[in-house]
């Protein structure tokens, strides 16, 4: 059986050097490796800011959160601001239980994420 793409991720390079990464669907243990690859690919574009738009993510399990913590570590090492935007209340709740909601920069929308 061929591997099926477990999540759809689109990229956009914005004027000014920011890159947005927009995953679509649910990110659990099965989908996290593809999400991780997409994030690595986004850093490879050498952005001056990485925005992960979570507005189309209905569910995120802790493997997805772990991937974002890893991204934060890359961001810190390379001085590339990382901003999460558009997460729904349930996904935000997961960050709260993990006490990570104050560790990440989070905005409600993309416009905010560009200046956060």
């Amino acid at each position, binding site marked *: 059986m061929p591997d099926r793409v*477990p999540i759809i991720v689109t990229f956009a390079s914005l004027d000014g050097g920011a890159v947005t990464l927009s995953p679509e669907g*649910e990110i*659990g*243990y*099965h989908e996290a490796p593809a999400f991780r690859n997409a994030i690595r690919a986004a850093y490879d574009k050498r952005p001056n800011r990485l925005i992960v738009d979570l507005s189309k993510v209905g*569910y995120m*399990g*802790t*493997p997805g*959160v*772990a*991937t974002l*913590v*890893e991204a934060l*570590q890359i961001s810190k090492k390379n001085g590339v601001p990382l901003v999460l935007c558009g997460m*729904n*209340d*349930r996904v935000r*709740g*997961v960050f*709260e*239980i*993990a*006490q*990570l909601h104050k*560790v990440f920069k989070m905005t409600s929308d993309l416009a905010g994420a560009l200046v956060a």
Partner: protein
Amino acid sequence: MSDGTQLQIELVSDSRYLSCVRECIAQASRQLGFSDAQAAQVAMAVDEAIANVIKHGYGERPDGKIWVKITPLPDEPVRGSGIRIVIEDEAKQVEPSCIKGRDLADIRPGGLGVHIIREVMDEVRYEKRQTTGMRLTLTKWSNGQAGRSAMSA
């Protein structure tokens, strides 16, 4: 299927079936009297627990077996509607006391699944099965305290 179990899912330890279990559990929880937000919490707890069985128990071997039993509990005046979910495997046995999340102050990837499970469920009990594998018993009540502060939207 005895002891009041009304729905049981048996799956191989292949992560592509996790989404099937999530959907099934969320729907069962709604049918048994939980709100959409609570049903999402129950589904998440089960998702995290099974992902752990696949990862830590079976070491990502995709042909292990996992059983998920769903039992409605009789409604109670104070605690409301109840659901019990038992997850069993034939994987490596570990001491229940070793199953714990990381220190939340030590920010690094991983170590969060067990925190989520304990936060959203009213009862969480890991134990070794008689011969092989582990058993996890999860219980939630519609009027219970678990998951009230977070993820309740």
